[in-house]
C-alpha cells in the first residue's frame, strides 16, 4: 500500500520525466559520431519507456483496454513499416512519421478542448493558448507531411502545383485559423470554431507543400519535423508535462537547424522555397546556348583504364545514383580499385538525396565505410590532388557556374569543386539539364568526359573492364 502511493506521488512521476528528458539529450549527444550513435538510440528508447511507465502510474490514468488497443494498432503498423522500408524510401517514411506525430498532437488538443467544454467551459488561458497553437501547427504538419509523402512516393506529381494567387490564399487561411483562435481565446466557447481551426490548418498544410518541387524536399521535410516538435512542446505546455515540453523543443531545434542547413546548401532563402515553383522557372542562362558546344564522350573501357591507373579517385554521387540503384555497383567499383591500390573517397554534398544525410545512409547500406564519406568542406581542398573525379547522377551541385556566373540562378550555392581535379568523368543518362534547368558548363570543360547511359549499367561495365585489365 505504501509503495503504491509512493509510486503515484506526482513528484515521483515528475522526477521520472526529468530522467526521461535527460536520456533524450544524451541520445542526441551521442548522435555526434557514428560509433556512439547506436548506443544513443537505445538510451533514447529507454528514456521513452520510462516516460510512458511514469504516465501510466498517474492515478487518474485509466481505460487500460483502450490504451492497449491504441498501442497495439500503433505497434502493428509501426514495426513492420520500420522493418521493411527500403533505404531509398527513407524520406517518405520520415515524412509519414512527421505526419502522424503532428496528427496525434492535433487530435489530443481537440479532445482536450472538448473535455474542457464538457466540464463547463474554456480551459484557463495558460492551457488554452498552447492548445490552440498545438491544434494549428499539428494539423498543418499532419496534412503537409502527407502531401510530402505523396510527392516522394510519386502518388502525387513531384513538380510544383500552384494556384494563381496561392500566397494570398495561404495568408487568408492562416488569418482564418489565427482569427478563430483569438475568438476562442477571448472567451467564445465553440467547438465549431475549433473544428474550423483544424480544417483551415489542414487546407493550409496541403496548400503550402503542393507548390514545392521534388528537389526542395530536404527543406520541407526538415521544416515539418520542426513543426511537429514545436506542436508537441505546445501540447506539453497545455498538459503541464515537462517531458513533452523538453522533448518537443529538442525536436523543434533539430528540425530548425536542419532546415537552415538545407536552405544554405541550396543557397536559397526559406521564404523563396515556400514561394515554390523553382523547378518550373524557365531559366535563360547567359554565356550563349549550349547546343553548339562540343562534348567529349567516352566508353567504359577507357574509363576503366583511367580509374585503374589513378592514385586517387573521388566519387561525387547525386540523387541519380539512388534512382538507378547503383550504390552497390559503385561499392564494387571502389573495391576493385582499392585492390589495385587506388584511394577512393566519396564527396557528399549536403543536399545529395531527398532528405538531409540521405546519400550517406544509401552508401552505408552498400557497405561503404563511413570514414570514406567526406563532407563538402572536407573534400573540396582535396580535389586539386585528385586524379579522377567520378560524377554519378549529380548535376547542379557540381556546376562551376555557382562560383563564377553572377547571373546564374544557382550563383552562390556551395558546390563540390570536381572541376579542380586532374580529370572529370560524368556518368549521365543524357544531356538533359538538372532540376534547376540550368546548363552545366562542367560538361563542356576540356578535361571532362561524358559516359552516357544508365548509371548502374555503366558502372558495372566499368567494373568488368577493370577486372580484365
Amino acid at each position, binding site marked *: 500500500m505504501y509503495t503504491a502511493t509512493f509510486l503515484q506521488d506526482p513528484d515521483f512521476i515528475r522526477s521520472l520525466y526529468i530522467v526521461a528528458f535527460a536520456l533524450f539529450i544524451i541520445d542526441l549527444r551521442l548522435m555526434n559520431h557514428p560509433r556512439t550513435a547506436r548506443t544513443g538510440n537505445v538510451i533514447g528508447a529507454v528514456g521513452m519507456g520510462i516516460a510512458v511507465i511514469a504516465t501510466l502510474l498517474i492515478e487518474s490514468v*485509466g481505460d487500460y483496454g483502450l490504451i492497449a488497443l491504441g498501442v497495439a494498432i500503433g505497434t502493428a503498423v509501426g514495426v513492420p513499416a520500420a522493418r521493411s522500408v527500403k533505404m531509398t524510401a527513407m524520406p517518405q517514411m520520415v515524412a509519414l*512519421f512527421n505526419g502522424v506525430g503532428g496528427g496525434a498532437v492535433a487530435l489530443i488538443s481537440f479532445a482536450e478542448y472538448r473535455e474542457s467544454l464538457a466540464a463547463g467551459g474554456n480551459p484557463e488561458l495558460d492551457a488554452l493558448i498552447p492548445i490552440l497553437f498545438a491544434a494549428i501547427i499539428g494539423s498543418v504538419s499532419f496534412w503537409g507531411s502527407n502531401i510530402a509523402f505523396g510527392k516522394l512516393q510519386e502518388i502525387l506529381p513531384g513538380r510544383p502545383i500552384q494556384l494563381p494567387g496561392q500566397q494570398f490564399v495561404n495568408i487568408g487561411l492562416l488569418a482564418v485559423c489565427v482569427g478563430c483562435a483569438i475568438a476562442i481565446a477571448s472567451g467564445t466557447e465553440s467547438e465549431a470554431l475549433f473544428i474550423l481551426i483544424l480544417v483551415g490548418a489542414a487546407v493550409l498544410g496541403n496548400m503550402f507543400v503542393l507548390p514545392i518541387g521534388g528537389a526542395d524536399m530536404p527543406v520541407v521535410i526538415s521544416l515539418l519535423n520542426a513543426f511537429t516538435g514545436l506542436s508537441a512542446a505546445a501540447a506539453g505546455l497545455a*498538459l503541464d508535462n515537462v517531458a*513533452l515540453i523538453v522533448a518537443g523543443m529538442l525536436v523543434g531545434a533539430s528540425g530548425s537547424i536542419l532546415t537552415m542547413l538545407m536552405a544554405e546548401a541550396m543557397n536559397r532563402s526559406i521564404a523563396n522555397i515556400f514561394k515554390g515553383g523553382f523547378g518550373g522557372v524557365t531559366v535563360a542562362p547567359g554565356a550563349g546556348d549550349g547546343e553548339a558546344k562540343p562534348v567529349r564522350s567516352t566508353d567504359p573501357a577507357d574509363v576503366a583504364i583511367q580509374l585503374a591507373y589513378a592514385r586517387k579517385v573521388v566519387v561525387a554521387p547525386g540523387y541519380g545514383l539512388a534512382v538507378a540503384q547503383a550504390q552497390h555497383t559503385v561499392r564494387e567499383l571502389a573495391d576493385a580499385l582499392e585492390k589495385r591500390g587506388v584511394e577512393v573517397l566519396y564527396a557528399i554534398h549536403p543536399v545529395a538525396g531527398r532528405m538531409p*544525410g540521405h546519400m550517406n545512409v544509401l552508401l552505408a547500406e552498400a557497405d561503404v565505410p563511413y570514414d570514406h564519406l567526406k563532407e563538402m568542406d572536407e573534400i573540396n581542398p582535396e580535389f586539386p590532388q585528385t586524379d579522377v573525379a567520378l560524377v554519378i547522377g549529380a548535376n547542379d551541385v557540381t556546376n562551376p557556374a555557382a562560383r563564377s556566373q553572377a547571373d546564374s540562378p544557382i550563383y552562390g550555392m556551395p558546390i563540390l569543386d570536381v572541376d579542380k581535379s586532374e580529370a572529370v568523368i560524368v556518368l549521365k543518362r543524357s544531356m538533359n539539364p538538372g532540376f534547376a534547368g540550368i546548363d552545366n558548363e562542367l560538361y563542356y570543360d576540356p578535361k571532362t568526359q561524358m559516359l552516357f547511359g544508365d548509371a548502374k549499367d555503366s558502372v558495372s561495365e566499368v567494373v568488368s573492364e577493370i577486372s580484365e585489365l
Partner: protein
Amino acid sequence: MDLLTELTILVLAAFVGFEVISKVPNTLHTPLMSSTNAIHGIVLLGGLYLIGPADGFLNNFLLVIAIAFGTINVVGGFLVTDRMLEMFKRRD
C-alpha cells in the same frame, strides 16, 4: 507548474537542443531525423493521460487514434533508426 516556469524550461531546452544538434555530422542527419521522429512520439503521453478521464465515444476514439499515432512514432522511429545506424561501419 506555472506558465512562466514552463516557458523557462522551454527556452533552455531550445538552447540545449541547438548546442547538441549542431554537433551532429551531416553523415548522420537522416538517422537524426528518424530518431527525432521517435522522440516526438512522446505526444503519446498526452493520449495516455487524457483517455482515462475522457468521456464519450468521440473523445475516446480520437485519443485511441492519437495513442496509435504516437506509438507508430515511438516504436517505428527507434527501430528504423537502429536499422540505419547498424549499417554505419568503419573499414573491417
